[in-house]
């Protein structure tokens, strides 16, 4: 996690942004929320199903 302070947990190594568009949308929107949030180092957010 060198230098990575805003991390959204993806579903899998093979498809970090999800399998379908709906899942991808949830992940990217979660990432955008995290970008708009002040964080402590190495903050990891989950994505709601």
């Amino acid at each position, binding site marked *: 996690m060198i230098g990575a302070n805003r991390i959204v947990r993806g579903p899998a*190594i093979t498809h970090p942004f999800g399998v379908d568009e709906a899942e991808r949308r949830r992940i*990217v929107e979660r990432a955008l929320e995290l970008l708009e949030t002040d964080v402590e180092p190495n903050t990891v957010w989950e994505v709601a199903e």
Partner: protein
Amino acid sequence: MKAVHYVNQFFAGLGGEDKAETPPARLGGAVGPGRGLAGELGEVEIVATLACGDDYFAEHEEEALATLLGYLEQESPDVFIAGPAFGSGRYGYACGTLVAAAAERGIPSVAAMHPENPGVDTAGKAYVVPTAVNVAGMRDALPRVARLATALAQGRDLGTASDEGYLPRGFRRNYFAEKTGAERAVDLLIAKLGGETRTEVGGGLDRVEPPAAVPDLSETLVALVTEGGCVPQGNPDRLPSVRAKGWLRYELDGAETLSAARYESVHGGFDVTLANEDPNRLVPLDTARALEREGRIGRVHETFYTTTGNGTPVVASTRFGREIAGELREAGVGAVLLSGT
């Protein structure tokens, strides 16, 4: 038991910066901080001190090294000690280079310097005792250097870096532990709950201060970056599947999606079947474009960046990050979506 000690021109009492061009010299017995070191070494005697000007060593390294190693080998010491160099870069470099060369020749060797001294990286298989950044740390450093040097002179098998007081060298050794991993993990957790953080595996990682939150994504240029090895079909620029030595950039030219007909992943570290069926699973261009149309983000940067994060040394990936970030900053990018696999 015999020790040889290396110091620079200043600690040898030869002069300051005005004497930094002093060629290698051999002095008898302990000199300068070596006298304090001798007092801590006990049964190990400093039989000679080698000295060299910091500039001379840096500018005539091959010659200086050969001369100093020649002096060292003549003494046949049981241990070679260099420094402490504290935060002095040239001195630390000389110390690290010398102990590495001595260790290669089978002479147990230890240097002492601040952990961030560039000389640490030159010490090779030799040991480095961490010190304060300046000479105010001399009194603290000498006993610790002496302890390790004595152990080396005695030929004692050394324990872990944290037990013996040297900087980790990155070597892993197997040993039979008294407690199982589960028991040791519980011990670490209990210690942490009690306020003491310990680890069996050193991090050695950078800590980067998080940038402030993006104030308004609707006005922000957002870039897409991946270490998933996403490249145009056929991998025209030959991005390696493993141990990439660089990164690539490709223009999106307004594309709304990364089509499977035009892009693929060449990453050698995972099954790329799903990524190749739909490259947006690695680089979410389709979603980013939708958000751009909706005004959720300002614009999608028309250049995406890619590399293969598979077996990539930390040093290389750190360089990639800096280089890519430099271009993104130049382009006015305010936020990045980076996919890691």
